[in-house]
């Protein structure tokens, strides 16, 4: 109990007792005096509180309360609190209207759904992109109105971040994202990515066509350069030049072959053969394939489990071959390369671990981009095309898996391939 409260209480009581004493003198009855005074006081309190309530409701100022006294102070405090609350309310209304206007003006469709996929809220673009109306469709299940089979599959397992779906009826491509922001709430956003898909298609077609067109003249260059290399020259320099031409033509041929393979995988213009792949057999075949590299680091194979994989064996071979080739390139002869397969929550994991030069963590995210080099000079010294990891990433996606990379400078790198289709 605060001092202020005690002071007010004491003052009020003393005042009432004084008035009651005066009444007692007039009426000669103590009981009547006390009851009358307290009845008047109760009436006064009710009148004052009702007036304060009306004043707040109607926003009218009470002038007769004066500036001093308990009720006057109380009235002044309530007035100041009400004023502040209106100020904040106004601020919130402005902010809410701004957020609402922002959501309405978004070019992407945005929908809030609950754990049963019932639409709670949606913006105007939802109508343009999905035909979902904010007025009439709130409360409907989103999977009943957006019926793309790929979207329905994605909605039940939105781990991959986003899914691109071709809306054939409207000749456009839509990108769906689902973000769970609360236990029973999710935000679905849909973006029209038709232009991006078309641009990517043009780029892919250009690379495929250009690579194809370059292949014919390159074959001629390669053939003649090999003929020249075999000839006898008077000077040593001429012989060296011919050898360089042949080596560079070979390198260019490898780049073109990789580009063609990458564009084929990216366009998904590839028929996958689903066969049971024996991992131990595949590893043995891969190691045998690298037998030509005599000066290579020690290779350890760890394949202790009994799982088998249903996948395209050729594509799997290509994925691990690319990773092993990188590991051999960037690991000194004294180092170690581990090829390991193990069970994973989503299927099976194959790891290629090396103790090579590694790379900074900020480069890891960009390393799967085509032609991306950490050290621009490396391509010449190591002889790679800069397309290997890009091929690995897209091949894994084609097989329904994904790639994880961990690396530390001067300690080595770990490349993890997760495959989803597994036979136990």
């Amino acid at each position: 109990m605060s001092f202020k409260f005690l002071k007010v209480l004491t003052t009020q009581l003393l005042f009432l007792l004084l008035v009651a004493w005066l009444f007692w003198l007039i009426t000669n009855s103590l009981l009547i005096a006390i009851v009358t005074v307290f009845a008047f006081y109760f009436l006064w309190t009710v009148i004052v509180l009702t007036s304060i309530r009306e004043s707040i409701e109607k926003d009218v100022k009470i002038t007769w309360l004066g500036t001093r006294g308990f009720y006057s102070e109380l009235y002044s405090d309530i007035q100041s609190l009400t004023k502040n609350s209106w100020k904040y309310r106004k601020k919130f209304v402005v902010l809410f209207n701004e957020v609402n206007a922002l959501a309405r003006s978004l070019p992407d469709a945005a929908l809030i759904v609950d754990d049963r996929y019932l639409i709670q809220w949606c913006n105007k673009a939802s109508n343009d992109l999905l035909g979902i109306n904010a007025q009439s469709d709130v409360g409907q299940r989103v999977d009943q109105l957006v019926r793309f089979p790929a979207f329905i599959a994605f909605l039940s397992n939105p781990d991959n971040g986003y899914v691109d779906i071709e809306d054939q009826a409207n000749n456009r491509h839509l990108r769906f994202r689902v973000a769970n922001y609360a236990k029973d709430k999710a935000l679905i956003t849909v973006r029209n990515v038709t232009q991006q898909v078309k641009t990517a298609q043009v780029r892919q077609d250009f690379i495929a066509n250009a690579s194809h067109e370059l292949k014919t003249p390159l074959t001629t260059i390669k053939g003649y350069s090999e003929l020249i290399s075999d000839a006898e020259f008077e000077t040593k320099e001429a012989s060296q030049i011919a050898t360089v031409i042949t080596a560079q033509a070979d390198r260019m041929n490898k780049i073109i072959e990789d580009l063609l393979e990458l564009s084929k995988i990216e366009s998904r213009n590839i028929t996958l053969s689903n066969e049971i792949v024996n991992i131990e057999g595949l590893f043995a075949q891969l190691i045998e394939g690298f037998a030509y590299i005599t000066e290579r680091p020690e290779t350890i194979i760890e394949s202790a489990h009994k799982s088998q994989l249903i996948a395209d064996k050729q594509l799997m071979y290509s994925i691990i071959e690319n990773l092993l080739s990188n590991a051999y390139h960037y690991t000194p002869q004294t180092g170690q390369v581990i090829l390991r397969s193990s069970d994973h929550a989503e299927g099976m994991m194959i790891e290629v671990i090396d103790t090579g030069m590694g790379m900074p963590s900020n480069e890891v995210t960009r390393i799967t981009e085509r032609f991306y080099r950490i050290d621009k000079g490396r391509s010449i010294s190591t002889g790679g095309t800069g397309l290997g990891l890009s091929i690995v990433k897209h091949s894994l996606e084609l097989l329904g898996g994904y790639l994880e990379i961990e690396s530390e400078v001067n300690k080595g790198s770990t490349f993890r391939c997760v495959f989803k289709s597994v036979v136990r």
Partner: protein
Amino acid sequence: MHKKKFNQHISRKFNEELESIRSKVLNMGGLVEDMLLNALKALYSNDTQLAEIVIKKDQEVNVIELSIDNDCRKILATRAPAAVDLRLIMATVKTITDLERMGDEAEKIGKTVISLAMPDGQEKVNYHELVAIGGHVQKMVTRSLDAFARFDSELALEIIKSDEVVDNFYETIYRNSITYMIEDPMTITRRLNVMWIARSLERIGDHSKNICEYVIYTEKGTDIRHSEDSVSKTNIS
């Protein structure tokens, strides 16, 4: 009728069962829509690989039909639905039959695309008449499923009326094909295939119309099947 009408039972489980059936029907509808779009794409682009995918998809549609049939049987046996619930179950059983047949027709188009596919270097048949009817039928299918999702009888009635356009398209293709065949008997086989596709599309349009009739039956309780009187159809809303 708003879907909330199906969510007003005392038993929450019953609400969920009805909602789950509706979702399954619309997922099945989504598959059929996809099959039809791919079948038309395969036809226009002479893509036999895509046509094969369409043919394989029909199996999925059949499996879903059996599953929904089973769910409806369980509800009839255990919940003894009445009034709007009974109408919904009846409409669902009939809708999935129509959807399954639409899937079969899309499969037929896929098979015809494979038999129509020309070896490289030969001139392709002009499918411009099929583009128009195909586009219209595809819209009918999508809109009839929208009407089912929202139980919107006004939209359903609009779709029923638009079936006439598909019938007119079919009539035109039929007459044109006969004219071509009389003029040049060498085109008979290919023209017959085109007519088969047009026939399949016309049938898909009819199935969409049937779905719309079930939507009206569920919402209004009025059975407008086989009612040739357009006035009665206009008056239901």
